[in-house]
Every structure is written in structure tokens, then in C-alpha cells.
């Protein structure tokens, strides 16, 4: 019983990470119809930046704050100067660009920080454990889950209770209509892309202490994030929440129940959903 | 002999009734026009006839066959071809290639792995023949997107004809044309549909009265009246429906 509880909580923590990464991915796709392969690279950069910041400043909380800000800037630059340029060439070129970007970031990271994994250490109460539902559980994983929930709520508030939120949601639905209303859609695109990158980077920072910081990080979470947005429905934030929990728990229990095929299981889920219900379990039929 | 029969066709889109109890027959060899104000359901009807949509209720017959659920490519192979209101051509390809596509199809050369279409004299000659009939032979090497609007509409017509159909569906063939272009288009349509059956959706009353043998008036998804042009011109219901909208 305790074992199950532990795996369940593990799954929630991972679900939190997945949500942070896939929320930006799904919004960008819904709005700009671009699947950003480099999104997981932003996640990885977040972790690496935090690692270096930690070396320089020595304060985890500061790294948690500054790293996503760096990704915010990078995201804005990528959208404004790279993505926008290829947009006119069409779908295929946009995909090729984000794919190429992911490739470059992967190689650049190996070049700057080397191929060996690095450790991102936390200290203080974050490194401890706490008694919860009858088991002793590491605080940090709860922290990861907590950060995701907090940010999720914040996103919900912004998207559903503010004017900017309405504009963003409208742009996801129909960006040409929004443009016709006089709103500067390119700015909205840039903003959403940048914020998405920042969230992904934040996820990377929080993931750092959980899994080690190495060049394979991006690839590891990329496919899971893709599965989340496919299962949840591309463009659906609510779907991303649900799907993150499903995939998070599947990964957690999958390692327990089907150790040899846990990897294959996730891909098969994505394949099944894409073939039978391409709009996702929670998405809307196009 | 009726080449196409529409029997009690209904179409709903999530509760919105677009077509209700549409019923008519198109006789072989005639030019049949469907007119009606915007939003009357003309394009939806066309989509149902050509296979893009399925009717919610009712049947579409082609000859004796029920084609209500047949996909577009099979309908075309049976002898039906449609044009599009918004020009739907192969923009980056040459005018020649645009028409060759349909000619190949009607001669069964769609997916052949060994034969080369350009080496087939029959195909090439037939393609040039069609280009000639829509006055585009001189432009055969021009990329379709470089044509003037009127020429693109002619190409649209040419592509529709390329599969050698018995029944030609024309969706607002003179859309966006000037007076002069419309007159030319009317002549061209009369020429190329001479021995075929033709079903036309149109807005422009001049075009309709120049071309049609019979007219059906569609109003909010219901056929208001059906008959020869003179009958329609004098039909009170039609006049009421069009009150102030068009000079009949």
C-alpha cells in the first residue's frame, strides 16, 4: 500500500513537470500551428542555466527565478527573428526550423558543458523529507508538484480572468479574427512563445535536482510532452492537465509493472490516440 | 431521362437546418440552374451532390445509382465533375499539367508505375484539345498562379472538363468577373457544355437567364419554385422572396 502511494506521488511530481513543459507547447501549437521541437530544449537550457547560476551565485531560489527569465528572452528572440522568418515558407519549413534548433541547442550544450551529467543540489528544508499519508516522502518532489499547481492556477487566472487572457485564448481559437479586431497578433505570438519557453525553463530548473542535468534531458521529456499534447488535444490547456496526470502516472507505474516495455507503452498510447481520435481525448474536433 | 435526382435531401449542421426537403431532377442534356440569395444553402447542396458532404436525410441518385454516400473520387469516375467558386487549381504547376491531371484520370493513368504521361500522344493531344476550348493553349507552359483572374477561371473550367464528365457542376462560374469577362464566360460555357448536362449555381441573373433551360429557386434551404425561366420570372413567391434584392 505504501509502495503504491509512493509511486502515485512520484507520478504526480512528474505530471507537474510535464504540465509545465507541455502547457507552453500546446498553446503555441493551438495558436500558431507550429510544433516546437525546441521546446524541450528550453527545458534543458533552464536546467543548465540554473546549474551555472548555482555555481556563480550559490542560491537555488535565485537560480529558480533568473533561469526562466533568461529563457523568456531567448524565447522572444527565437520567435521574433527565426520562427517568424520561416512562417511564410510554410508548415514543413517551420517544423524543420524548430527541429534544427533543437539539434543545435543539443550540440551547443554538449560543447559548453560537456557530455557528463551534472548535479543540481538543493539544500535546506527542500532536501529533507516529510511525513505524508503515512509515508516518509521527499519534500522536493512535493515542491515540484506544488510549483506546477501554483503556476497552473496562476495561468488559469490570467487566461480566464484577465483581458490579456481573453486575447490569448481568442488567438488560439482564431488568430486571423483577432487580428481583424486590431490587436497586434505578432506581439501576442511572441509573448505566448516567450512565456511558454520560460515555463519550460522553469520546469527544467525544478527537474534538475530530481533527474541529473545531462544532454539527454531534452530528448527524454520531448516525446512525453508530445504524447501529452496529443492525448490532451493540441491547443487544449485543460487537456494538457489531464493528460499530464495520465502520462505521469503511466510512467511511474509503468516502470513498476512493465519494466521492459514502459517506454514502448507511452508511444503506443500516442499512436493509438492519433489514429483513432486525432483531436485528442479532450480536444475539439477540427 | 433524368441524369441526377435529388430526393428529399435534408442537411443539418449541429442543429442548424441548412437544407430541408430538397427535391428535384436534372434531365439529360439540359442546363439546370439553382439560384437563391446568400446563405440559402446552394453551396451546401453542391457539396452534397459532389460528395464533400453526406446528406442528413434523403438520397442523391446518379442515373439509377444511389450515390448518397459515395466519396468524391468515385462520383467523378462515374461521370460527374465539379468546379469551384473559389478557384481551386494547382497553382505552382503549369496550365498544361493542371488539365493533364484530369485527362489522365479519365483514361485510367492515375497511379501507373511504369507509363509516362508526357510520352503518351493520346493524353497530350486530348489535353491540348481541352486547353484550346477554354482559350488557354497559348499559355500551356505558364505557371497557373501567373494567369490573370479571368484566365484562372477558364482554367478552373478546363480542369472540370478534363475528366470528360457527363454531368458538369458549376459553382458560381462567373464569380468575381467583370461585365465583359462574364459575357465571355457565358459564351465559353455554352460552347463547352453543348452536348452535356450542366448544373449551375449562380447569383448573376443575366447569366442564369442566358444559360438555363430550367431554374430552381432555393430559399433558406427550401426549394421555392422550379420551372422554365419565364415561369420563374413571373412566379409571385419568387418575387416576394427577392423583394428589392434583384431585378428579375
Amino acid at each position, binding site marked *: 500500500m505504501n509502495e503504491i502511494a509512493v509511486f502515485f506521488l512520484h507520478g504526480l511530481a512528474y505530471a507537474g513537470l510535464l504540465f509545465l513543459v507541455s502547457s507552453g507547447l500546446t498553446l503555441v501549437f493551438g495558436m500558431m500551428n507550429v510544433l516546437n521541437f525546441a521546446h524541450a530544449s528550453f527545458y534543458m537550457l533552464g536546467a543548465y542555466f540554473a546549474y551555472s547560476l548555482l555555481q556563480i551565485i550559490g542560491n537555488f531560489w535565485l537560480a529558480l527565478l533568473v533561469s526562466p527569465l533568461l529563457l523568456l528572452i531567448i524565447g522572444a528572440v527565437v520567435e521574433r527573428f527565426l520562427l517568424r522568418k520561416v512562417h511564410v515558407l510554410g508548415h514543413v519549413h517551420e517544423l524543420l526550423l524548430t527541429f534544427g534548433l533543437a539539434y543545435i541547442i543539443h550540440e551547443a550544450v554538449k560543447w559548453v558543458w560537456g557530455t557528463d551529467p551534472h548535479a543540481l543540489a538543493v539544500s535546506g528544508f527542500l532536501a529533507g523529507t516529510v511525513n505524508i499519508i503515512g509515508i516518509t516522502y521527499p519534500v522536493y518532489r512535493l515542491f515540484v508538484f506544488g510549483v506546477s499547481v501554483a503556476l497552473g492556477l496562476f495561468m488559469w487566472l490570467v487566461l480566464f480572468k484577465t483581458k490579456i487572457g481573453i486575447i490569448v485564448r481568442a488567438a488560439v481559437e482564431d488568430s486571423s479574427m483577432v487580428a481583424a479586431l486590431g490587436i497586434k497578433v505578432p506581439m501576442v505570438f511572441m509573448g505566448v512563445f516567450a512565456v511558454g519557453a520560460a515555463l519550460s525553463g522553469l520546469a527544467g530548473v525544478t527537474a534538475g535536482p530530481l533527474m541529473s542535468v545531462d544532454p539527454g534531458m531534452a530528448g527524454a521529456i520531448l516525446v512525453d510532452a508530445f504524447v501529452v499534447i496529443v492525448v490532451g488535444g493540441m491547443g487544449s490547456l485543460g487537456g494538457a492537465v489531464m493528460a499530464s496526470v495520465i502520462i505521469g502516472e503511466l510512467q511511474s507505474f509503468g516502470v513498476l509493472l512493465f519494466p521492459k516495455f514502459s517506454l514502448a507503452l507511452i508511444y503506443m498510447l500516442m499512436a493509438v490516440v492519433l489514429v483513432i481520435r*486525432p483531436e485528442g481525448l479532450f480536444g475539439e474536433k477540427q | 431521362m433524368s441524369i441526377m435526382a435529388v430526393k428529399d435531401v435534408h442537411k443539418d449542421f449541429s442543429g442548424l437546418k441548412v437544407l430541408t426537403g430538397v427535391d428535384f431532377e436534372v434531365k439529360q442534356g439540359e442546363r439546370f440552374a439553382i439560384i437563391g440569395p446568400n446563405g440559402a444553402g446552394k453551396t451546401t447542396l453542391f457539396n452534397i451532390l459532389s460528395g464533400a458532404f453526406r446528406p442528413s436525410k434523403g438520397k442523391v441518385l446518379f442515373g439509377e445509382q444511389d450515390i448518397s454516400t459515395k466519396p468524391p473520387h468515385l462520383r467523378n469516375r462515374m461521370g460527374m465533375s465539379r468546379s469551384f467558386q473559389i478557384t481551386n487549381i494547382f497553382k505552382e504547376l503549369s496550365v498544361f499539367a493542371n488539365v493533364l491531371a484530369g485527362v489522365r484520370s479519365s483514361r485510367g493513368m492515375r497511379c501507373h508505375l511504369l507509363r509516362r504521361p508526357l510520352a503518351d500522344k493520346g493524353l497530350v493531344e486530348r489535353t491540348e484539345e481541352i486547353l484550346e476550348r477554354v482559350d488557354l493553349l497559348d499559355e500551356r507552359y505558364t505557371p497557373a498562379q501567373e494567369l490573370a483572374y479571368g484566365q484562372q477561371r477558364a482554367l478552373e473550367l478546363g480542369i472540370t472538363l478534363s475528366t470528360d464528365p457527363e454531368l458538369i457542376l458549376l459553382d458560381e462560374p462567373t464569380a468575381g468577373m467583370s461585365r465583359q469577362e462574364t459575357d465571355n464566360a457565358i459564351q465559353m460555357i455554352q460552347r463547352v457544355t453543348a452536348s452535356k448536362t450542366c448544373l449551375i449555381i449562380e447569383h448573376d441573373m443575366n447569366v442564369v437567364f442566358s444559360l438555363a433551360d430550367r431554374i430552381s429557386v432555393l430559399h433558406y434551404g427550401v426549394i421555392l419554385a422550379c420551372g422554365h425561366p419565364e415561369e420563374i420570372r413571373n412566379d409571385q413567391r419568387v418575387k416576394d422572396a427577392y423583394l428589392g434584392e434583384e431585378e428579375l
Partner: protein
Amino acid sequence: MECRHTGRLLGLVLAALLLLGSLPYLLPGYQLRLFTEIIIFSLFAVSYNLLLGYAGLISFGHAMFFGIGAFAVANFCNHISGIPLLAAVALGTGLTTVMGFLVGCLLLRVKGTPFALLTLAFNALFYAIATKWYPVTGGDDGLIIEPHKVNLGIAVIDPSKGPDFYYLTLIVLGAAILACWYFTRTAMGRTVVLMRENEDRLRFLGYNTMLARLILFTISAGLAGLAGCFYTIFYAFVSIDALSIDMTTTVLLMTFIGGTGNFAGPILGVGAYTYLQNLLSELTDSWPLIMGVLFIIMVLFTPGGLVGIFKSLAQRFARRPGSADQ
């Protein structure tokens, strides 16, 4: 462009054949091996471009067919004693073609980005299965094969000898590449381009576009499998690297750098990539980074690849503008 300059073209072709035929006498062993590898990857890239350039289908999983072919031939050689090498290749290619058909039936129900995602997922799936399926793939260790000599009656070809294998590759894969070129001129080849341009209209012209896509995908997969077979024989070894996303990335880069809008583009790309990689890897371990930067620059500024660059240069110096040939 149906042979307006037949005489000149023929002369060019003959000269090329002569050059290719005498390469083993002109190049040192290492260079010849490099060139052989270029031929193998050229077929791989050409098959990939049938999807990317001609059909407009972006696939992130083409390596799965390359890998299936590679492993198939290894297993056939190792488990069926005395099997002629070419028979093993034929079987391997056949198996990959069947797999291509089955995978295509599943994947081609969707288009665009969902399709791209599915190809990625399936590639990852096959890779995951391959890492665990030790008896067939050798897992992390890979499989060694000892390719048998090919007895053609008039000559015996020993695949372990550089020049022998070069000629085998040149003839078999060269023929396959030529077949692809011919394919682009056939009815099916033209249909593929029509589909890319306006699939919707094509349906209303009597074309069963789903079937056409499936046929194309199957052919492309089979050809990738053939390339994979020769890859295994070339190294006398195959590992799961042949199935990896890395391998897909490599062929994607090669194809794009060469230029997707032209039949010869991918071949050019393979050559450029291979020689560049050779050069750069002598200088630095981070050559993939440079390749990636080159790729991005090309996506941004020269999306037509090397062929595109040559074409614009040619147009600058030509007196007559090009005409739309298709």
C-alpha cells in the same frame, strides 16, 4: 523537359558512367569506401525525398525502414545457411516493403504535423523494441555478419573487397536510384506532386489519394530498406544505431542541405554532408554543432538547399529565363 538536348545529355551520361566505372583505379581505398557509403546514403536520401520533396510529407521516422532492412539482411544471412547474398538483400527489401505498407496504413490516416509526430513515435517505438529484442538485433552489442561472395557466373564479387563491393553497390543501388528518377516521370510520380499541390481538388478529379499516398509510402520504405541492407553488408555489422532518431536526423539534414525541390538534390546533399563531416571531424569533436548551424542557416536563407543556390547562380549568368517544365 523531355530530352530537348538528347545528344548532349547522352554524352554527359556516358562520360559520368566512364568516370564512375574507373573510380577504383583513380581513388585510394579509403576514398573509395567513402564514395561507396555515399551511394548507399544517396539511395536512402532519395527515398526520403520522395516523401519530403515530392509528396510534401515530413517524416521523422524514415530510419525505421533503413534499420529494418539492415537487420533483416543480417538475420537472413546469419540464420539461413548458404543463402546467396543478393537473395538475402531481396528478402530484406521485401520485408521492409511489407512493413512500410503496414505502417503506412496506420500512419497515413492523418496529415501534416500529426503525421510527423506519429512517424517520430513509431521510430522511437521500433528503437525501443530493438534495444530489448536481443536475438534479432543483438541489443547494444549489435550483429556481425559475414557476407558471402556473389557468384554471377562470369565473375565473383567479394563484398569484403573494396572495389568489388563498390561495383556491386554502384550497379544495384545505382539502378535503384535511376528507377526512382524514372518514377518521378511516371503517372504515379506526377500524381504524388499533384497531391502535394492540391490534394482536395485531386479527389474531385477521380483520384483515390489515400491509396496513392500509401503506394508512395510503401515504395519509399522499401527503397530505404534496400539501402539499409547494403549498409549492413558494407560494415559487415549492424547495430541499433541504424534505427535511431539520429539516423533519421542525418538523412533529413543530408536531404535538405542538398535541396528537396530537385531529384539530384539529396544526392548532392549526401556528398556534401559526407565530405564536410569528414573534413570537420578532423578539426573538431563538435562538428555536429557546425552541421546544425549550417542547416538552420539554410532553412532560414536558402530553403532550396545547394541545388537552390546553384540554380540562382545559374540564373544570374543565363540569358534566357527558365521555363516551367512540368
